């Protein structure tokens, strides 16, 4: 018998209303509040999208704003120096940018009275500055000027002043900034911009005074530390004093930043002293210029000296860019010079693409032709922890089937056995220098069973300058050609090497040779272990040669001597 509930109709109606309000309105709001407490960006973004799909979501503007902010909290830069490089912010993708733009545009279109209206306008311009789309920024500035919202008008003029600064129209920029300061507008971005304008005009005392005012002034609209797109903020006067003491001089660097020959505006130019910094640090560089709408820049005056120059492009840009590195690692500044930065879209590996499983021992690699290329090189990447691709990695050129490193054509055959005869780049790991063990790839070779090896192709001109390569500055794994070697199982001895148990591996192989003096695997790996040394200072070339000669007498393959020659 079916159980029934007996109740008055009015009781049922009250229950239905409570249920609809609870499920339709209160639960989504609690849900939204819950999402705002999540720190993990991707999870929060997914849940904001879930909230926005609810038919009764009443705080849609808030969710749109939070979603955009979680996807694009800040547009950092990917910084490229003559030696080091790296990013100073989240790896924001083009998809994230597109979604954030849609969110902000919807707020501007539909929620004029929203508390997120002005911030959406500002953030939208920041994104377009980050994307180097100065035309869109100008369009938004024009739109803002005709707004009935005073804060929108103010923001519009603030960004107009920034654009004047970018185009080195410093007087126009200062007029706008001073106008609002004299009207009593308290916004630290005004002082930050004022400081930047004076700094780029080399009026350092004025710049320092403006920067000092930042500390006592709040942001007008929000507590965001972003300053005009991806432009890094110079925060204090102390920094200026330190800069002028150490670097300010009268030598200037002029140049242009281009992508496929087209100008790249809003790119930041940095230097750091080579003697002070040997490696990349996002906080270690000095901001010395920004490119104008023509992609051109002129730095402030610098003292004579040796510098590393660098350029910062917004991170979403870096997904599809290759930096055409020059074959020089230091800038010797003794006079005014010109220095250009060129970026291009990456060349493509035509086949194989993505990760593929190699069942045999050879594969054919094809790539697109690069105009002006003299030769190409194929590079392999070895990881410190090869099976999950984590920890550090090293990249080195590998030969083709014929043992050539410089390849003239646009396709080549890679024989993994040939590659494994050649020495690899290696790294050492251990608690101290005296106990540092060599990485397994140096002994096993680049390709061994189970390993994943990303492959990169680079194109060079006759002078050895990089023209293009298959891997952009930031890439998704699925877009990289990766060889997964699955042609056989690892042997017991190879497992010892892979686990960096080298002394055990030596004992194991020597025992094998006692049973069978012609064991090829034992002779091969013992020769390599002694040629390179499993630990710093532990190599023994005599022993290595002895094993190699025994191997040669059995196989007749003179490739066994390659590692000894090198």
């Amino acid at each position, binding site marked *: 018998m*079916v*159980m*029934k*509930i*007996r*109740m*008055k*109709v*009015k009781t*049922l*109606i009250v229950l239905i209303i409570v*249920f*609809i309000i609870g*499920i339709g309105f209160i639960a*989504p709001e609690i849900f939204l509040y819950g999402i705002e407490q999540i720190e993990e960006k*991707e999870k929060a973004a*997914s849940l904001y*999208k*879930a*909230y926005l*799909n*609810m*038919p009764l979501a009443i705080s849609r503007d808030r969710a749109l704003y939070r979603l955009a902010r979680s996807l694009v909290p800040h547009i950092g830069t990917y910084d490229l120096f003559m030696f080091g*490089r790296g*990013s100073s912010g989240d*790896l924001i993708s083009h998809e994230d940018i597109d979604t954030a733009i849609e969110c902000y545009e919807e707020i501007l279109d539909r929620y004029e009275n929203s508390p997120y209206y002005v911030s959406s306008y500002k953030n939208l311009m920041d994104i377009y500055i980050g994307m180097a789309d100065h035309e869109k920024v100008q369009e938004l500035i024009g739109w803002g000027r005709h707004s009935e919202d005073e804060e929108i008008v103010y923001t519009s003029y603030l960004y107009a002043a920034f654009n004047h600064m970018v185009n080195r129209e410093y007087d126009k920029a200062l007029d706008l900034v001073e106008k609002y300061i004299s009207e009593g507008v308290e916004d630290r971005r005004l002082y930050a911009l004022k400081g930047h304008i004076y700094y780029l005009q080399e009026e350092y005392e004025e710049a320092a005074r403006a920067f000092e005012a930042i500390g006592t002034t709040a942001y007008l609209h929000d507590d965001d530390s972003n300053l005009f797109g991806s432009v890094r903020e110079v925060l204090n006067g102390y920094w200026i004093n330190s800069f002028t003491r150490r670097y300010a001089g009268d030598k200037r660097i002029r140049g242009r930043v281009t992508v496929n020959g087209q100008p790249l505006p809003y790119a930041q130019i940095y230097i750091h002293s080579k003697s002070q910094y040997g490696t990349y640090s996002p906080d270690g560089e000095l901001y010395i210029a920004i490119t104008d709408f023509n992609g051109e820049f002129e730095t402030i005056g610098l003292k004579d000296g040796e510098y590393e120059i660098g350029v910062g492009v917004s991170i979403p840009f870096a997904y599809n860019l290759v930096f055409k590195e020059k074959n020089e690692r230091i800038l010797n500044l003794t006079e005014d010079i010109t220095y250009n930065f060129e970026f291009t879209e990456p060349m493509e590996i035509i086949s*194989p693409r*993505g*990760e*593929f*499983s*190699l*069942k*045999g021992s*050879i*594969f054919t690699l094809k790539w697109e032709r690069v105009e002006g290329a003299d030769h190409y090189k194929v*590079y392999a*990447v070895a*990881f410190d922890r090869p099976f999950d*691709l*984590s920890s*550090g*990695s090293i*990249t080195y050129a590998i030969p083709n089937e014929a043992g050539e490193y410089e390849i003239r054509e646009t396709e080549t*055959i890679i024989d993994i056995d040939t590659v494994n005869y050649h020495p690899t780049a290696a790294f050492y790991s251990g608690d101290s220098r005296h106990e540092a063990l060599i990485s397994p790839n140096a002994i096993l070779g680049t390709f061994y069973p189970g390993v*994943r090896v*990303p492959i*990169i192709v680079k194109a060079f001109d006759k002078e050895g300058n990089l023209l293009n*390569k298959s*891997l*952009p*500055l*930031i*890439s*998704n*794994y*699925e877009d*990289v050609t990766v060889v*997964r070697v*699955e042609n056989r199982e690892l042997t017991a001895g190879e497992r010892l090497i892979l686990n960096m148990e080298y002394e055990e591996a030596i004992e194991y192989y020597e025992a094998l040779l006692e049973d069978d003096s012609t064991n090829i695997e034992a002779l091969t790996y013992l020769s390599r272990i002694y040629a390179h040394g499993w630990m710093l200072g532990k190599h023994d070339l005599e022993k290595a040669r002895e094993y190699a000669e025994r191997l040669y007498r059995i196989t007749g393959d003179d490739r066994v001597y390659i590692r000894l020659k090198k």
Partner: protein
Amino acid sequence: MKDRFDEELRAIMLEETEKIYMSDELKESILENCKPGLIYRIRAFLNSYIEIPVPVLIGVFAIVLMVNLIPAMDIDVDFNDRQVVEIGNSQVIVRDMGDVDGYED
């Protein structure tokens, strides 16, 4: 002894009213004015009792819940932790390393 007054009274009334007829218009008018009002009917409805089978109640509850939540679930939920690895001076975002096709040359 049983009181017969009611029966007597009834008989007198029947005799006296035997020849009296009410017109159809009058009947309709009286019926029209006697209809219960809207408020009365609503109140009567609200105070009436209904019996709801428990499975039906659960079903309706689930449908209402789904109508609001199913669109919310239509998202690309990707909670996989992404890993950024350095490859040849580039940063590579690894989300998933799934199965791949074999390759033999």
